């Protein structure tokens, strides 16, 4: 996303092009947002409905949360763009260690 766009040599044209590109991207962001709201609604409804067992609901809403967070990170925070290699590496490592930590605290502490 940096300044890799081709330069036409004409600043006015470049700006038009960039404007359009940004607008396009903004449209995608709004769609992403709609999806996130939708996922949130499903999660809340699944819990409010009371017809499902916990064995279904818990993994289901966790999955929804993970999907939503991926949207948030990759689109709202632009992690899908170029120039995010180091952030990705460190976020993935952080998530791995976060996972191991939580796994530990849900398994091998005394109850």
């Amino acid at each position, binding site marked *: 996303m940096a300044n890799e766009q081709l330069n036409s040599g004409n600043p006015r044209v470049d700006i038009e092009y*960039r404007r359009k590109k940004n607008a396009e991207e903004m449209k995608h962001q709004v769609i992403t947002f709609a999806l996130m709201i939708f996922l949130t609604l499903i999660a*809340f409804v699944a819990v409010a409905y009371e017809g499902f067992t916990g064995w279904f609901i*818990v993994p289901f*809403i966790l999955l929804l*949360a993970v999907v939503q967070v991926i949207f948030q*990170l990759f689109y*709202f925070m632009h992690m899908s763009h170029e120039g995010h290699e180091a952030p990705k590496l460190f976020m993935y490592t*952080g998530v791995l260690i*976060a996972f191991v930590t939580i796994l530990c605290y849900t398994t091998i502490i005394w109850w």
Partner: protein
Amino acid sequence: MHVEEKMTVETWPAAPEKQTLDAKNKFLGFWLFLGGETVLFASLFATYLALKDSVPRSDMPLAKDLFEIPLVFAMTMILLTSSLTSVYAMYHMKNFNFKKMQVWLGITVILGLAFLGLEIYEFNHYVHEFGHTFTSSAFGSAFYTLVGFHGAHVAFGLLWITTLIIRNSKRGLNLYNAPKYYVASLYWHFIDVVWVFIFTVVYLMGMVG
């Protein structure tokens, strides 16, 4: 100093948040900080999961007695929306539209304040209606620490963004403050990321039992 140079729509770069070395450093450093924050919040989540519903007496409230859908739903919607408004702000920053950026950030701050207000109401409600306090049980300690840490992050983010809005209101966008805005918006999104897990793990899973 060239970072403070007056910019125009023509000279404004496509990625103003990463134009100078300082900006690149700030950008990367902040992402790394978020990597560390991930582990920090994971530790708090882990503590909460270990101590959930762990109370000394059987007459004390548990997660399923405390949480109610409407309030959490409202808080979630407010915070998610504030994430979108800060995306809008960054969209206008890229288009060098300073006024609109400030307005959208202002809306973000208002939504954040609303969220914080609801959280304070919520905590107050638990304390006075249920006697569920920070010191009443391990469950209480863990709950208030996790959600409170998130709340403190929200409060800090509000102070930060407000400072940015006021500090730069007179001088407009330049390559010195654009990365500051960008990084603040990253922080705000990260707060949202944490909240997604809080409403799922703490509230929804708490209501499931």
